[in-house]
């Protein structure tokens, strides 16, 4: 029942003509009428309490957490508390899971495979490769995630994250970026792909691109466990044991803060070079504090985040485990493929304060950052020739404690520099393939996707290179 097209054009012409007649300020007038109307209707319906301005808890908390002086220290303290709880709480369940899945179940599976006459190759591929990689991912990642995500979600539900955005807003503006980038960055701390999608709240394409490209510097789910583990094993070992948890937490917070600083720095650089333009203004609403529904939050964050990330890690760990086992057991000449690759990557790795094992692990882990640590451990076992009971080449070492892990990594030639640079490189390198794909879908541009993938990689290589050179210059 569409009207004839000349009638439609007539309407449009009339609209154009009338628009000139009603003149400027029409839009503002309309909005003003709307607001007046809303205010009148609300006033008729709402009865406010007679008691005048009692003690307002929300406002008092807001004054404190968004204060110029206390805002930042409180933010850092709060995040440190979260990491400290995560780090000190995760050790026991991690060791428990690893003793069940690796120490007990693995030999049972091996002997079961032998008893049904499975060939050594197949049982190696399935049990030593795929099963062990998965078991490692579960025992290393599940406990910290199961503690960290509910805590983070509780902060989110309570209403703290928008306050963090409020604190950071000014710096983002000074960096030439949109203040709402603080929100997408906070989402990025959960998952970069989600953070990239969250940039949709930013209207201006220029500022949205900056937010997308720099989201990688928000330390994501997949990388928190790497940071937490390496900090616990290496940094925590530097101090007496009663301080270890605290110092490890401090190191992880330090890396996260560095990521935030890099976000500002790269936003600033982008907004002054390829993405120049005006900063838009916006209003940021501070939602009311709401008492979180603790049990419900724990449940949904377990289902939505912990299980989601764990599942993703497991899905990628199984083929990666098979691949690593194959690399370690198929030989060309008298060395395995993995050995060849590691030898090839080693000079470059050493140059940037890492090693061939770590670089190879990062190549294997492009689909998911979650499996970096398990891959590093598998390959280190291979290189050092140390292995657990009944295991062969390319089989993961069953580290029962952090001290065992430290021994293993020292044997693999690791130093404090390796650990620090691994933490740095984990923060500053290309985003995972899911995030890269999301960036492509959101921007619709190969060029910007390439920038978003390669810029962090180059920066990561540069930073680790410089740190390695300076370290060797002063530390020997």
């Amino acid at each position, binding site marked *: 029942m569409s009207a004839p097209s000349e009638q439609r054009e007539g309407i449009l012409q009339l609209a154009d003509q*009338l628009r000139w007649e009603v003149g400027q300020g029409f839009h503002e007038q*309309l909005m003003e009428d*709307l607001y007046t109307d809303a205010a009148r209707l609300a006033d*008729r319906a709402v009865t406010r*309490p007679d008691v005048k301005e009692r003690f307002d808890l929300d406002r008092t908390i807001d004054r404190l957490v968004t204060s110029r002086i206390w805002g930042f220290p409180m933010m850092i303290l709060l995040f440190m508390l979260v990491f400290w709880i995560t780090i000190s709480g995760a050790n026991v369940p991690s060791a428990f899971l690893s003793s069940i899945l690796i120490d007990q179940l693995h030999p049972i599976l091996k002997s079961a495979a032998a008893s049904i006459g499975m060939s050594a190759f197949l049982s190696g591929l399935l049990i030593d490769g795929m099963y062990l990689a998965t078991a490692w991912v579960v025992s290393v990642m599940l406990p910290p995630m199961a503690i960290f995500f509910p805590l983070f979600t509780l902060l989110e539900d309570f209403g703290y994250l*928008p306050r963090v955005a409020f604190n950071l807003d000014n710096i983002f503006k000074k960096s030439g970026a949109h203040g709402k980038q603080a929100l997408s960055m906070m989402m990025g701390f959960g998952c970069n792909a989600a953070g990239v999608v*969250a940039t949709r*709240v930013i209207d201006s394409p220029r500022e949205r691109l900056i937010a997308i490209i720099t989201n990688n510097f928000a330390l994501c789910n997949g990388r928190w466990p790497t940071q937490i583990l390496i900090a616990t094993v290496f940094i925590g070992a530097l101090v007496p044991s009663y301080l270890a948890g605290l110092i490890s937490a401090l190191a992880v917070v330090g890396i996260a803060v560095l990521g935030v600083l890099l976000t500002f720095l790269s936003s600033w650089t982008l907004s002054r070079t390829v*993405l120049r333009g005006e900063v838009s203004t916006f209003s940021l609403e501070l939602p009311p504090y709401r008492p*979180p529904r603790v049990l419900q939050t724990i449940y949904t964050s377990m289902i939505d985040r912990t299980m989601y990330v764990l599942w993703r890690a497991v899905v990628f760990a199984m083929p990666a485990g098979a691949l690593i086992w194959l690399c370690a057991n198929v030989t060309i000449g008298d060395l395995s493929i993995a050995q060849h690759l590691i030898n090839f990557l080693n000079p470059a790795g050493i140059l940037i304060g890492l090693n061939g094992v770590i670089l190879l692990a990062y190549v294997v882990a492009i689909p998911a950052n979650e499996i970096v640590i398990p891959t590093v451990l598998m390959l280190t076992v291979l290189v050092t020739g140390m292995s657990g009971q009944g295991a062969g080449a390319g089989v993961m070492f069953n580290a029962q404690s952090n001290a065992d892990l430290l021994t293993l990594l020292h044997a693999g030639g690791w130093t404090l520099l390796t650990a620090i640079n691994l933490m740095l490189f984990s923060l500053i390198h290309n985003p995972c393939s899911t995030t890269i794909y999301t960036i492509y879908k959101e921007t619709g541009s190969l060029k910007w996707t390439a920038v978003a993938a390669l810029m962090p990689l180059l920066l990561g290589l540069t930073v680790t290179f410089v740190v390695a050179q300076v370290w060797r210059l002063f530390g020997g």
Partner: protein
Amino acid sequence: MSDQPNTTPIPIQQPASEVCATCPAHSRANLLKLGVDMTDWDYVVALAGNPNTGKSTVFNALTGLRQHTGNWPGKTVTRAEGGFQFGGQRYKIVDLPGTYSLLATSVDEEVARDFILFGQPDVTVIVADATRLERNLNLVLQVLEITERAVVCLNLMDEARRHNLTVDDRRLARDLGVPVVPTSARRGEGLQELLQAVDDVASGRTVCRPHRAKVQSGKLAHALDQLTTQIQAAYPQLSNARWVALRLLDGDEAIADALRRGDLGDLNKPAALDPVRTEVLPLEAVS
């Protein structure tokens, strides 16, 4: 329409179910959460509202899905869809991004507006924060300009009580000309009444007479009348001719395009079987 509380019909939820509604057996029998199963729906419900008013909580409570909800404006940036069954009818429910207005100045506002406009929902539920009614009514009034079939879900009543606020929902319903249902979605309070109101509007048992803001300036009112008359002549079925006229006067290209394509005539067709998809367009690469 000017403010005439005595002559505006009062859309009230039928009290017949009041006694039953408190009985858990009745609730279980009436609401069937279908999760993502959205086959063969009878009605489409859109869920609009300001950010951080609990839209996702309402969505989860009705569909049984567990989309993560956060105390966080801008939590939902994409559209989520789910299904439920109530009173023998199957519903598809679409959770729209939270917005403060429908002027389509950003992607999320555009997604929300286009769905209400072109997605042809049978009922639009506007979730409003009872503790911030004034700000939320801005959006409610904008939605009511576009569609007649709406229900206001006055959410966070528990928060309002905590702040000692009393909200007269019946008076608000009378003023707005659409059903207003007080709820505390987090605690599951008021959802039965909300569903009943949605069902009544969808089936036509409740007829809404939405409040439409009066234009104050004389010059503007004249221009608006002229244009509205023209649009009504071309599209006699259109219920939101005045809103279309306003948007055209404001130079809204999306609406002008819809008029050129001839899409506007279909706006008020009830329950199209295949609503127009309003996907988020990819960001235009700059430079």
